[in-house]
């Protein structure tokens, strides 16, 4: 009764589309404003795309893209037939799923809670404190994680008090210990910053709805479930769609800094695996490019799939 059906995010097309020449003539200034962005995209994002050819070459840095030997899919075969590629894929998907579930929900929950705080001073202080980890470098985050999860670290001592064995948790080669460490360090670092967009969305929810619901006797929880969440649903869908596209590729630097040979089997993801294989005794740019291309294709596929599913299931979609 309290929910308001939100409009799909896709903007309605203008009823009468102008021929492009006329459009440029009429909105020339707007096109001029857009031109630098277009140039940037073309120069720095589209032209370099020809470099994906490296993935199909025995790339030699001296000979360049055009001079290197074409080897077809050999780099991909090398990548997929690697001894531990199966484990690497499992870890990549596992950590991605954790990040997509627990990691994605955390900022939404924080935003919902923050918006229910009545003391504005407390709310601002809390927001500031939760944002701050986002600005801490990954190197420092990893060092903190090492420190807290070491045999005598604070988190380890806390877990020991709860009956878990005293150990260096980062060296634990059992599933899903490393996955959870990776997920929770992500949450610690990104939840505050990630909640900004949801706090903004919640602030834009029509206050009359809450007022009417309150008059009708709805409690806070009921109002959150029936008004706030449906109202920010388009935003959630948009963020989820964007996140699905990047989740497969994230975590390289943190995992590289936190894992060790003993935990490779549970911590290695495609990017770290490729890094070691491609930049070992000598540098294999082809393998690295093949891995990058593979991840990009998977990410694009996931993005399209997620968008399509969202459109079908919720009537909201990014494009």
């Amino acid at each position, binding site marked *: 009764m309290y929910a308001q059906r939100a409009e799909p995010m896709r903007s309605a097309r203008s009823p009468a589309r102008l021929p492009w020449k006329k459009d440029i003539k009429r909105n020339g200034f707007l096109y001029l404003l857009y031109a630098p962005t277009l140039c940037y995209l073309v120069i720095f994002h589209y032209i370099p795309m020809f470099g994906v050819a490296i993935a199909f070459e025995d790339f030699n840095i001296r000979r360049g893209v055009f001079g290197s030997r074409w080897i077809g899919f050999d780099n991909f075969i090398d990548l997929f037939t690697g*001894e531990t590629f199966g484990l690497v894929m499992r870890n990549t998907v596992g950590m991605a799923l954790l990040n997509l579930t627990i990691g994605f929900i955390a900022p939404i929950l924080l935003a919902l809670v923050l918006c229910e705080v009545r003391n504005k001073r407390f709310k601002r202080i809390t927001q500031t404190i939760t944002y701050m980890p986002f600005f801490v470098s990954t190197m420092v985050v990893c060092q903190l994680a090492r420190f807290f999860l070491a045999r005598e670290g604070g988190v380890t001592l806390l877990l020991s008090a709860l009956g878990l064995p005293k150990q260096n948790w980062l060296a634990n080669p059992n599933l899903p210990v490393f996955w959870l460490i990776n997920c929770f360090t992500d949450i610690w670092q990104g939840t505050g910053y990630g909640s900004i967009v949801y706090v903004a969305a919640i602030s834009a929810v029509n206050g009359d709805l809450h007022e009417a619901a309150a008059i009708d006797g709805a409690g806070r929880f009921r109002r959150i479930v029936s008004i706030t969440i449906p109202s920010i649903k388009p935003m959630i869908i948009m963020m989820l769609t964007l996140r699905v596209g990047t989740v497969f590729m994230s975590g390289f630097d943190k995992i590289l800094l936190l894992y060790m040979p003993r935990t490779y089997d549970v911590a290695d993801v495609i990017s770290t695996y490729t890094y070691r294989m491609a930049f070992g005794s000598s540098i294999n740019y082809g393998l690295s490019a093949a891995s990058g291309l593979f991840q990009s294709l998977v990410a694009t596929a996931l993005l399209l799939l997620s968008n399509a599913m969202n459109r079908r299931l919720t009537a909201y979609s990014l494009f």
Partner: protein
Amino acid sequence: MERLKNLYRAIGAMLAALLLTSSCAFAADDGLVNAAPDAPESSFSYWISRGDDVSYYEAYQQNPGVEYLMTKAWGPNQTRLSFDFRVPIMGSEQDNFNTMLATGDYTDVMELTYYNDSVIELYEDGIILDLTPYVEQYMPNYMAWLDAHPDYKQTATNVVDGQPKFLQLYSYYEGVNDPWCGWCYRRDWIIQFGKRPDGSSFTGGFTKTLVDGTPDENSWTDDVVFPSGETYPKLISDWEWMLGIFKTAIDTLGIEDGYGMSVFYPGFIASGDLITGFNSAGTWYKGLDGKIQYGLTGGGFRAYLQCFSTWFKNGWVDAAFTEHTGEMFWRTDEAKVRQGKVGLWYGLEAQLLNRMDDGEGLKKGVVVFAAPNPINDVYGSASERNVIPRTMFLASLEGQATVVTDKAKDKDLAALFTFLDWQFSREGAKLKILGLSKEQYEETRNELYTRLGFTEGAYYANQTPDGELYKLLPEIEADDRLANAVRPIRFFWLDATATLTIPNEGMKADQQRVWLTYSNTGTLNTSFIKQLSPADTNLYSKVNTQVTEFANKHVPDFIMGGKDPFSDKDWDAWVKAVNKYKPDQVTQALQTLLEQLSQ
């Protein structure tokens, strides 16, 4: 009028003679001639991987030695050379080198430290020059050095189309310098907690103190004897005896987070070292029969694992060794070592004797001695026992490689190669390792030397039974950064420290030399591996990367008890798993190369 002209001529001749005499009076006796003011000039860009502290000078061409050499005349045309040294930012050497090659903006002369692929490919791509004619014509000193060292001469050239060619020039050491790292152990713990077979205790300590009240490190004496009968731990059984003592020490002192021995995180050091005493290595090496062998699947490595798994079971080694990733093997868990909680470790010369003793807590009374790589006398079969160590991290005479690129082909290469060759002369080596002499300083009045007050030169000479030998001034010797800055050591060199300098004396130097107890005859030098064809280089690189990764992951299982190195089943499974990466193909390629070079 004629008389006046004659007078002018006479005065001119006298002035010229005076100028010549004064020049000779200041000329350094290094066989070099000053470049004439109107001498032809030739300039070369030169990529080196490291420069010096910018607090001394901004560009490497301002190095006192380089400045001096740039005033001289080189080659048949008496050319004045100038160099534009390009030095990458520390930490970005590899990127800088790759970018240079990829963009084609590489220098005339390049150090190859950060080049990992086939050097023959560089030649075939036309990037580097065939140096053979220049080396043969203009580098008699370099050739003489190679002739005197046939093992190194064999790999100084690359075979291209069946012909040996000098594609790169190697820097070399005249002899093995005092090493800077090796095995270290707590001698004080052996005295304090060790017992002789008859149950009596050892005695030892410093007998003298310095003016400031600290013990004189050269006054240490003790009566420690290891089970082998030696005064140092020679055998694995000596090490086991010693590790037992360290366990007693740690238990007695109540060091909860202490341990007997630190271990590099993969459980082995690939260069050999501890494994070599078991007649194996952590990678490819030259076996006792002179053939190339792969270490990780041999019986020697199994014996090594049997040894370490036993030590782990006995509680002698760091239980958390796999967690010290990102640390070099000569700095494993260094914080704990420096806190006085470890008995045996691979450490640095700066930790020897009483250098870690600051009089506080567990560090009080620490005395560290050096140990050579031990010889296995306990584990494995007869072929894995009592073998003299021969593959180790230190002790190769080979330094970095240098190439000359096509960018320099139209320049005065005769002058360049004469210049490079002079670095291999006695005087060149002296300048390299000792810096400017008084005479050389007076010729250039180098600003840095003047500023730092080294107007008498950077070193002094002593007559010894072996002839005249030299030593850097104490204030230079004591400061590594300064010592690097006053000498031109960053480019192509012959390091003659072993033959030209007065050897360091005292107990610390003696201890450092313990690390040189055995010669490195089994390690495959970089120059040898660089002889591989481009295809074999790729194969070597790929297999090496994959098998190293596999070993780093799974060797700890054998040590920590996940797998049993005494079990044939586990060992066979290991060998099978390693062989999946086909290290034998690389062994074959290296063996073929070795045979080719031996012909």
